[in-house]
């Protein structure tokens, strides 16, 4: 996996207890076209607090262009921004 740290548009839902479930996201590709990726499975979720900045990191799996890929997305709590961290 390569570090990308690309800002993405995200659709996610929250449980009553505040648990966050990412569903699908949309991002700009190199040729300026947009691609929507459905998150098929969240493999792992962890919280990081590096530099005192809390982020939720999800390791996910999706089929992109007929290839099954594993990648990491990050949610920055302070800014409410989502990033495609590694793919």
């Amino acid at each position: 996996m390569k570090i990308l740290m690309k800002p993405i548009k995200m659709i996610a839902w929250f449980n009553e207890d505040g648990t966050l479930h990412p569903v699908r996201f949309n991002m700009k590709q190199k040729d300026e076209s947009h691609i929507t990726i459905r998150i098929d499975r969240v493999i792992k979720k962890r919280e990081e607090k590096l530099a005192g900045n809390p982020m939720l990191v999800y390791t996910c799996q999706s089929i992109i262009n007929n290839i099954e890929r594993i990648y990491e997305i990050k949610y920055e709590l302070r800014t409410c921004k989502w990033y495609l961290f590694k793919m």
Partner: protein
Amino acid sequence: MNSNERLILHIDVNSAFLSFEAVYRLQHGETVDLRDIPSAVAGSQATRHGIILAKSIPAKKYGIKTGEPTWEARQKCPQLVTVPPNYALYMFCHNSLKELLKNFSDRIQVFSVDEFFLDVTGMPGADQPLELAHIIRKRIKKKLGFTVSIGISSNKLLAKMGSELKKPDAVSTLFPPEIPGKMWPLPVEDLYMVGRATSLKLRKMGIGTIGSLANCDLELLKYKFKSWGKLLWDYANGIESSAVSSSSRDTVKGIGNSTTVHFDVEDRRTAHQVLLSLVETVGMRMRFSGLCCRVIAISIRRAEDLTFYSHQLKIQTPIDSTTAIYEYCKRLFDEAWGGEPIRHLGVRVSDLSPAVHIQLSMFEKEWEKQKVIDRAVDQIRMKFGPGSVIRSNFLWSGLAPMEGGLSDDASYPVMTSIL
């Protein structure tokens, strides 16, 4: 270790500002770790705040020192990567570190933005202080991403001296029996509270190491330095007994602000304006703490040789009004200034007392009306932001109407002299 001895840890973040920035960048996908390359946190050169605030260890190898001008650092190391300071980030790091340390003891003292004292006497794991310190060190590194140096001893002074022994990402002990071996061979400048002026005097007396200071005749030191001599001698012998107190920040001794002006100030009027911008923040901070002051001081740094001088005065009636302090600052400035170009100006108030009961004086001007205005202005600024009301003489002046302070919420000093 003696059973009735305390166990104090001093936790010091390695190249704090730079580490915080490096970790933040790594978290945001940066592939280069600033700590692995010659890099530094430096103020903006355009506004002449261009000094090195923190540096990486590779930068240190080029002889770059904290506090030196950025252009000078660049001459030593042309490939130096500089990043601007981000005080909000430092406060986030500071707060998370504090939260993490609270898991180990409730007796915690914030010493500065990147230093903490922790009294772990009788806490779980205190029978194995080295292991405990390593657990803390590793947890900080894993959770927060930056490294710390931890000093372990039976008082705050030795713990602080201990954390200096080995850097980065290290733990050192400095218990009283270890003083002759570990602390005494160090140059006297390494002792806490020995600054440039004291070191010069000590060197003249033939005292070059902490050991020779510790073994010096106490009466001689008292004769040369008065009560300060006793303190130095105690510190050199590792004698210090203050408590790790979480409330030490509550007793403010003085409030001050200073700024480096982005051009050389050459006329009285501009200097007064800069002073006013500083007084605006000092006054607000004082009123928010519910305090009044009786001593007002200004400091001036010359542009030519960067030498520094100050002037102060004591008044009868305690005041907290911006205009009142400004009036005194103007007087002090006019008395002290020799007419040379100025690079840096500072204002400081001390001898603080609660602003509840004030003995008024028949011989000094009354500031009651000003107080009402100050209160109104403070409230407007609180509600609509610091820039909502400014003094009209700052319009088109090119000067900031309020100067000083690290950031909105920076309530901790970067350095302090009170243990």
